[in-house]
């Protein structure tokens, strides 16, 4: 009974992983590939295009961690102040919704909302600001990535924090109220400390996926006018490998990303185990 599962993993996971030896070879359509050692890596690291891609990946990932990470925590704290009832249910159901939409759909929604006649520009008009074409603006496109990711995930990501808050004993709050603590003080001295271990775990997990920088999102929100600002490792691999057919070269870029990702995940796993007693698995 174990066999179907194992066969599946061997064919669809192990074989393509072993196949990544292609990074050290030249691809041949007919006949055996030939070994070329580190050739592709040497080209990779001396190519300004690849260095730019690497920079973009790091910048976009960092922006997302800095600006998005705190939002679900704040959201959870706010939702926690809403009494159980229809309003809380409404807030939660609505804020979780974007998580279930594909990035193709979200791109469609945002492209329309950010268009020169879209909702954002109407709000800008109200404040007497000039209309902007966000999707083709090199200055703004990374912020489009940050805000659309926030729109999609902040609600859903607050779930883990809400779960942590719900485990806090109500007696603590009762005692605090008797001592005259107001809402903000209760947040500061009871709720936040109780969430700390969840916050650390989620933060470390996020670091583990740093090199991804959100492929699906960038893939759907990217266009020719802004590509220099948002081209990340995976979109680069896609373009060089699958569109241009430079399989070996693109696999080298993939392998580089995979190894960094592996180091990050393993180190964050052990860090997390050390600080919170919980690992990635």
């Amino acid at each position, binding site marked *: 009974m174990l066999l179907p599962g194992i066969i599946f*993993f061997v064919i669809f996971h192990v074989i393509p992983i072993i196949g990544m030896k292609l990074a050290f070879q030249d691809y041949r359509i007919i006949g055996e590939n030939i070994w070329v050692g580190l050739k592709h890596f040497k080209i990779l690291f001396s190519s300004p295009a690849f260095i730019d891609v690497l920079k973009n990946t790091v910048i976009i990932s960092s922006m997302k961690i800095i600006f998005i990470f705190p939002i679900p925590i704040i959201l959870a704290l*706010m939702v926690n102040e809403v009494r159980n009832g229809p309003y809380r249910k409404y807030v939660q159901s609505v804020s979780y919704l974007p998580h*279930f939409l594909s990035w193709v759909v979200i791109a469609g929604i945002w492209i*329309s909302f950010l268009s020169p006649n879209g909702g954002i520009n109407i709000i800008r008009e109200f404040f007497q600001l000039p209309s902007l074409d966000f999707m083709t603006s090199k200055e703004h496109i990374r912020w489009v990535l940050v805000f659309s990711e926030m729109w999609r995930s902040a609600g859903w990501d607050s779930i883990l924090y809400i779960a942590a808050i719900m485990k806090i004993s109500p007696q603590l709050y009762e005692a605090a109220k008797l001592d005259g603590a107001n809402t*903000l003080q209760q947040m500061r001295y009871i709720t936040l400390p109780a969430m700390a271990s969840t916050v650390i775990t989620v933060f470390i997990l996020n670091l583990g996926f740093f090199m991804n920088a959100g492929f699906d999102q960038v893939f759907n929100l990217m266009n020719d006018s802004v590509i220099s600002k948002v081209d990340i490792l995976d979109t680069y691999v896609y373009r060089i490998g699958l569109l241009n057919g430079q*399989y070996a070269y693109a696999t080298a870029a993939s392998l580089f990303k995979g190894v960094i990702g592996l180091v990050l995940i393993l180190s964050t796993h052990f860090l997390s185990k050390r600080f919170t007693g919980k690992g990635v698995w």
Partner: protein
Amino acid sequence: MKRLSWTRSIIYFVLFIITLAVLIPVLNLVAMSLSDPSRVKELTGLGVIPKGFSFINYEIILSNPLILKSIANSVFITIVGTFINLFLTSLMAYVLARTNFVGKKVVLLFLIAIMVFEPSMITEYLLMKDLNLLNTYASLILYKAINVYYLFILMRFFQEIPESLIEAARIDGAGHFRIFTSIVLPLSKPALATLTLFYGVYHWNEYFRATIYITDPNKWPLQVVLRQFVVKQDNTTMLSGMDMSAEMLASLDFGSLQASTIIIAIIPLLLLYPLILKYFTKGTMDGGVKD
């Protein structure tokens, strides 16, 4: 009635604004798709009430053979794919959760290794090519047929089934397969429902593998067609295969047509949303960060 404190009122208000920020972009597209094409220009980017009322955009979209075919493809891939996901995942979860065998530790370690190291999209593509699976639904169904993370959720659930029930069945002479189908699976309906929705939503929303594995437009799932239309702004493909007079073409509003395609892609999720909320929330809280 207790009066709301100042802090509370501000929080209620801010949360209301947040929900509007989520809803208005979506409702604006709904309004656009339902507006009369001759009046849709009056609709502002923040408007949520259709100008005039007409189903014409949906009629046009749903009379496009390419889109109709893609909806059928998506439904097929989602149903068959999810079924195969569930079968393979639960079979493996049962063996790992309820039996002891030599090398079980190795298998578990192997699964964790798979979780932390993903193959390159290039070698995955070359594999599908070597297996002659390009341009087949099988490539989409077999890719990630077992999600390790979901496998672990199901394993944990199977482990909680009382040993006494299984022992009783074994005494009655039931083998592993019998125990699996007539005891473990029926007792695991909530977990299986969770996984059905996890896998189902994944298949419905999947577009990337379909973009690279499927080059025949007649085999595209809805998300790929939607991407062609909305992200790549390819209107020619969208209107090909349709009989339309020049007059009719001139009266069309492409923004509204795109909007209605987006809404069609969201509708199944909205219909299942109460179920999705219930099971996803539970599944994520149980399986996510475990205490």
